[in-house]
């Protein structure tokens, strides 16, 4: 029985929580609490707050897409409803003297999200696949459209706003400052992420995977696929509601936009970009996407175009997302052959950067030459200032792009060889 000695079971009996599984979480906690020390500026906090919210939302979304195999086009609804409800709670706190410390608000948001996931999941989870996707789209659009009609709850076009600082102080904190909100979001991020991770290790979490892979087999093991999907859906709705509550706390306003297809589509994009097959995938997706949106958005109006290209390339070439790309290197790393890849990577990274930057330059120059007002033909790109009008700048940028692409093309076989060397064909069966 030597194998059993290595199983998680016996490891678990030795210490309450094995260090190996707790370590990543401890690092994450230290990291999250250290961040504001390194980046104390207001804009950094704004970005980090958005990230925390998006990460929770994306993880909750991946409970469906990645773990349950359900493609939802209307998931913003559950986050939005949770958020709207919390906005009303904040207003009750302010106007009607309801006693509620702000840090507990996400629980209420979660419960409200759960309630609606329970109601809507009742009929939408009866089927998987395309029917589920279509119902989610329909319900999403329905509720988004209702937001303009049901003014009492959704506040119409203006949405609902409130003030987070009106509740009782929480150990002397009134949450007026961004930094306080960040720590609140960080705590809820850790709690939610841990809870979602543990959910995936429960019987229902495992069976959700089973239903995703093979719903028929799961039925013949005693599980109702519909109930399994329904429960996953409710759990996802709960965490979406938490994300919505944090949104309400952070932005102090919710509008129709929090419910509509654009928001639902964005979270799909984030999750898929990160990689649906991994727990950490949505986290990476959210971080990368928010950085693209905010940081790249500061420098170029075309950020959404670049994000779109990146997304499509991901779907086509890396269906496991950015995390899949990283995970591809775990095998070579374990075999100690990562070094084989180093040289081709180093050779390619230069041309690749040149290709990306010159390709983007083509877009930027063309865009500038069309958008700029008369007499403002000068543009500054990568520290160079030149006139965007005329064929020359575009031609130069395009030429560099093509040249670097050809160079990449020539280097590709070396990489392929190295890749094959690092991943020897290994079929033990």
């Amino acid at each position, binding site marked *: 029985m030597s194998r059993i000695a290595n199983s998680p079971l016996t490891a678990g009996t030795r210490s309450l929580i094995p260090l190996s599984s707790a370590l990543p979480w401890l690092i994450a906690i230290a990291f999250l609490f250290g961040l504001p020390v390194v980046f104390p500026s207001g804009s950094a906090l704004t970005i980090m707050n958005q990230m925390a919210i998006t990460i929770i939302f994306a993880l909750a979304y991946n409970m469906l897409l990645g773990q349950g195999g359900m493609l939802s086009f209307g998931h913003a609804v559950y986050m939005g409803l949770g958020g709207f409800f919390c906005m009303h709670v904040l207003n009750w706190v302010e106007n009607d003297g309801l006693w509620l410390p702000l840090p507990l608000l996400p629980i209420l948001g979660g419960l409200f999200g759960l309630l609606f996931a329970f109601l809507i999941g009742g009929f939408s989870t009866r089927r998987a696949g395309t029917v589920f996707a279509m119902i989610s789209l329909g319900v999403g659009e329905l509720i988004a459209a209702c937001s303009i009609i*049901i003014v009492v709850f959704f506040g119409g076009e203006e949405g609902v706003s409130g003030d987070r600082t009106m509740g009782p102080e929480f150990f002397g904190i009134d949450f007026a400052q961004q930094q306080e909100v960040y720590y609140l979001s960080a705590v809820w991020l850790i709690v939610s992420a841990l809870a979602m991770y543990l959910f995936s290790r429960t019987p229902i979490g495992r069976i959700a995977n089973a239903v995703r892979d093979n719903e028929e087999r799961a039925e013949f093991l005693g599980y109702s696929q519909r109930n399994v999907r329904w429960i996953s859906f409710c759990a996802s709705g709960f965490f979406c509601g938490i994300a919505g509550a944090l949104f309400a706390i952070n932005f102090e306003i919710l509008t129709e936009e929090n419910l509509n297809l654009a928001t639902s589509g964005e979270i*799909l994009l984030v999750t898929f970009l990160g990689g649906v097959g991994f727990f950490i995938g949505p986290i990476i997706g959210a971080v990368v996407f928010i950085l693209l949106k905010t940081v790249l958005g500061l420098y170029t109006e075309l950020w*959404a175009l670049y994000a779109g290209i990146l997304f499509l390339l991901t779907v086509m070439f890396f269906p496991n997302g950015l995390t899949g790309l990283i995970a591809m290197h775990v095998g070579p790393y374990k075999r100690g052959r990562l070094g084989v890849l180093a040289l081709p990577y180093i050779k390619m990274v230069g041309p690749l950067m040149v290709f990306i930057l010159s390709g983007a330059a083509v877009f930027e120059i063309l865009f500038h030459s069309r958008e700029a007002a008369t007499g403002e033909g000068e543009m500054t790109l990568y520290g160079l200032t030149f006139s965007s009008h005329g064929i020359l700048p575009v031609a130069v940028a395009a030429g560099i792009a093509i040249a670097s692409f050809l160079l990449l093309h020539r280097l590709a076989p070396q990489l392929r060889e190295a890749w094959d060397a690092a991943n020897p064909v290994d079929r033990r069966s």
Partner: protein
Amino acid sequence: MSLFAVNILDGLVTGLLLFMLCSGLTLIFSMMGVLNFAHASFYMLGAYFGYQISAYVGFWPGLIFAPIIVGVAGALIERYGLRRVHQFGHVPELIFTFGLALLIEELVQFIWGKSQKAYEAPLALDFPAFAIAGNSFPAYKVFMIFMAMGIFLVLLYILTKTRIGMIIQAALSYPATVQNLGHNVPLVFMGVFGVGTAMAGLAGVIAGPVLGTFPGMAFQLGSIVFVTIVVGGLGSLWGALVASLLIGWLQTFAAAYNVGMSDLLIALGFEKPLDLANSALRDLWSLTLPQVGPILPYLLMVLILIMRPQGLLGKRET
């Protein structure tokens, strides 16, 4: 009554326009099993190409060349994009077309800018064809009706009388068989995708001058197109026609009549609360049909999917 008649015509225009999109989408779904989320984006491309061509050589050449360009673009995207993703399964395919829709919108904004383009109906058709009780009906809309009907007849002819039509028909009825054949007929896939997108492009050329040519036009119509083919029954061309007309009329009539919920509630014997502004039910009382109009198609779809998942005229379950 005269308002009713003119709304019938307006709804017909909307419905037939929807059908031009839905027919292509249905064909693509039947053959390839993929719901093309980007279908309305090809419609938008049609409008923009139509606009661009009309700016140089007039509306009519645009009517011919813009759909061809869109169709070729569609076929290339099938060949180099969709076919690659096909191996990963249907969910990544759906996600691919979703991403494609986003990217096309960004590209359109990049090329043509973010504001609405002054894409106008040709002068030859810029006059009121007739009027019903003071409500004039533009000649261009008459042209739209005939155009859409013409397309439908051509499509019907191709599907029932030609060899390629037989293959596609077989795909409508026995998707599995043709999907097995699919490995041998990738060209048919490419062709159907190209033709389907070209039809969407044509719809765009025709609709652009009426509904406006702007970057949001694809998303505005996209989900309605989806709703229509699901309601009609995935894979059913007749279902698509019936659902298109149904939704066209539903939307037109809902916007045209100011029927209020309060009338209904009072008729049902409820009493209007005196202090309406502070009543929690004030939205219910002030609800009007035009307000509800935009959500009716979605409501219809959700109900259909719950009650009859195969759609109105569909034969197989989605």
